[in-house]
């Protein structure tokens, strides 16, 4: 890792944290306002790529684990890892990796065409939702003694908000990559 | 401090620099032995790249650049150990969240016991009457305080030469004056890149950069007069 990679990782971890402090975004039709933090996780993958993106998320999570109040709403500490959200937090790490991996392999660093838009959206959906929910659901199923299917059905209410985030992540990624493209790593 | 007797401080011999397929510096030939060198030039004239050559952040594409007797290409580490660098924006230079931790950073790479490192940090902060900032969060400091902390973190490494890249650009007048008088009091060799021409009036020599070349090389008065005329034309 070059010094610049370390700086990118640290800065993006800080961006994910700062997004948690920004006011939540109210969205018409969805009861809970969506926080920008999971958006930050998707963006870590789309902008930095698999390795650096996942490491940025890891750095952020270590700081939360250390007890810094960096989760959206000023929360932090080990209790959020052993509690119900723990699986999702771990899922963020793998989600960022999968998103970065898809982008790295399927879009070019310079050309942003319609196909690229579509791939970024699919990547955010697969990585940011499917991959994040998998450990999240398993964790809750274990905690509550329920089956995977039951928890899965229960978490469906969050999918519309997350899908919206995937769209926002795609739009932000396209804009950022047009102004300041970074080779995905 | 012992000056290099008879040796030159900077010795550039046909130095060219190419970055991203663009030629930034053309055939630089300059030798200096003075205490304080000023560097001026329009934006994009190559003066910042010149500054970055002086401590090995950039190396010449061809030609030879010797700093304090060390070749930048061959012994980058020796050059870096002896040449400190103060950037325009201290917010990008200070990398630790707490003042004392940041100043200590450079020392951590050397085999110095922790107690001694702490003592050095306190010593350098006291020298500038900044000891009260020791345990402060960096983001709570003023711009002037940040620039002084950035300078302290460089001085603690005891460099023989310090390169400043527009250190006063972001400061208000009071802080600019404080930083200016600190620079004038340094016993180290100084290379100062700046748009603040008044800063250079007491310097020993001023280089004027224009389109990647040294267009004038003279006493501050002559060089600045030349530069002002050039900028007005």
């Amino acid at each position, binding site marked *: 890792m070059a010094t*610049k990679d370390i700086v990118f990782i640290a*800065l993006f971890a800080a961006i994910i944290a700062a997004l948690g402090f920004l006011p939540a975004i109210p969205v018409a039709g969805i009861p809970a306002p969506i926080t920008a933090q999971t958006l930050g996780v998707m963006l870590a993958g789309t902008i930095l790529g698999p390795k650096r993106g996942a*490491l940025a998320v890891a750095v952020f999570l270590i700081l939360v684990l250390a*007890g810094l109040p960096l989760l959206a709403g000023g929360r932090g500490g080990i209790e959020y890892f052993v*509690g119900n959200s723990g699986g999702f937090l771990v899922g963020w790490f793998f989600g960022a990796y999968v998103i970065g991996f898809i982008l790295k392999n399927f879009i070019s660093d310079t050309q942003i065409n319609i196909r690229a838009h579509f791939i970024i959206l699919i990547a955010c959906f697969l990585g940011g939702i499917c991959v994040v929910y998998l450990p999240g659901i398993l964790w809750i199923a274990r905690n509550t003694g329920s089956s995977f299917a039951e928890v899965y059905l229960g978490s469906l209410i969050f999918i519309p908000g997350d899908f919206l985030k995937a769209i926002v992540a795609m739009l*932000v990624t396209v804009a950022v990559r047009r102004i300041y493209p970074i080779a995905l790593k | 401090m012992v000056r290099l007797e008879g040796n030159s401080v900077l010795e550039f011999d046909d130095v060219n620099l190419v970055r991203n397929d663009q030629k930034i510096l053309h055939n630089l030939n300059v030798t200096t032995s003075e205490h304080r060198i000023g560097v001026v030039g329009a934006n994009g004239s190559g003066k910042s790249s010149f500054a970055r050559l002086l401590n090995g952040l950039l190396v010449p594409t061809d030609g030879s650049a010797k700093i304090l007797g060390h070749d930048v290409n061959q012994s980058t580490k020796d050059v870096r150990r002896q040449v400190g660098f103060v950037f325009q924006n201290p917010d*990008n230079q200070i*990398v630790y969240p707490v003042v004392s931790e940041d100043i200590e950073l450079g020392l951590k790479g050397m085999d110095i016991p922790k107690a001694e490192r702490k003592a050095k940090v306190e010593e350098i902060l006291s020298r500038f009457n900044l000891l009260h900032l020791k345990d402060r969060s960096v983001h709570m400091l003023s711009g002037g305080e940040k620039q002084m902390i950035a300078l302290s973190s460089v001085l603690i490494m005891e460099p023989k030469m310090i390169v400043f890249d527009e250190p006063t650009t972001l400061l208000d007048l009071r802080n600019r004056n404080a930083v200016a008088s600190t620079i004038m009091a340094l016993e180290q060799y100084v290379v100062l890149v700046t748009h603040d021409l008044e800063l250079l009036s007491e310097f020993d020599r001023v280089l004027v950069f224009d389109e990647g070349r040294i267009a004038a090389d003279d006493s501050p008065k002559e060089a600045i007069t030349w530069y002002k005329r050039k900028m007005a034309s």
Partner: protein
Amino acid sequence: MDLSFYLHGNSILHKMPTWSKFALLVVFSIAFYAIYDFKVLIAILALVILLVAYIKVPLKRLKAMFALPLFMVVLFSIFSFVVNDLNAGLLTFFRLSSLVILAACVTVTTKIEDFMAFIENLLLPLSFIPFIKPKTVSLTLSLTLRFIPEIFKLGMDIKEAQAARGLRSNPIALIVPLIVLTLKRADDISDALDARMLD
């Protein structure tokens, strides 16, 4: 921006080495799922609540510390009750609430720098992987902490600038310049690091 939950004190939990607190937490989180006896579970919850009193958490901190995690525990216990039965719901409640409270106690009695040192030691056996050198890890964590307030302030400045131009707040118009301006600093920051680190 206060970035610490640490509670000053002198309890055993404060004095225990960080690794032992974590080991304790891991042991408990596994052991809890082997306990089905409600008497034992209630006794453990009572002990954990006593622990909160023992480390002297001030009353006004209680809400911030426990409200949300416990609310989540209750929510998931109800979920468990609905999809399974009362027994499962209660098991979920007692196990998770004890665990969450215990974890919160570890959080408020561990200094951030102690935790960081613990993480670095934990990663020591992995230091053959280039990125996971303890020095690199601690530098990265510090860099992140250094720039969180800066980036937050940048976000506020961008919002203000857009409001001044009469633009309505729009997450994309905020996040794009936030990311671009932040990443553009990476060159200068890594130059500064290279200039200052001598190895």
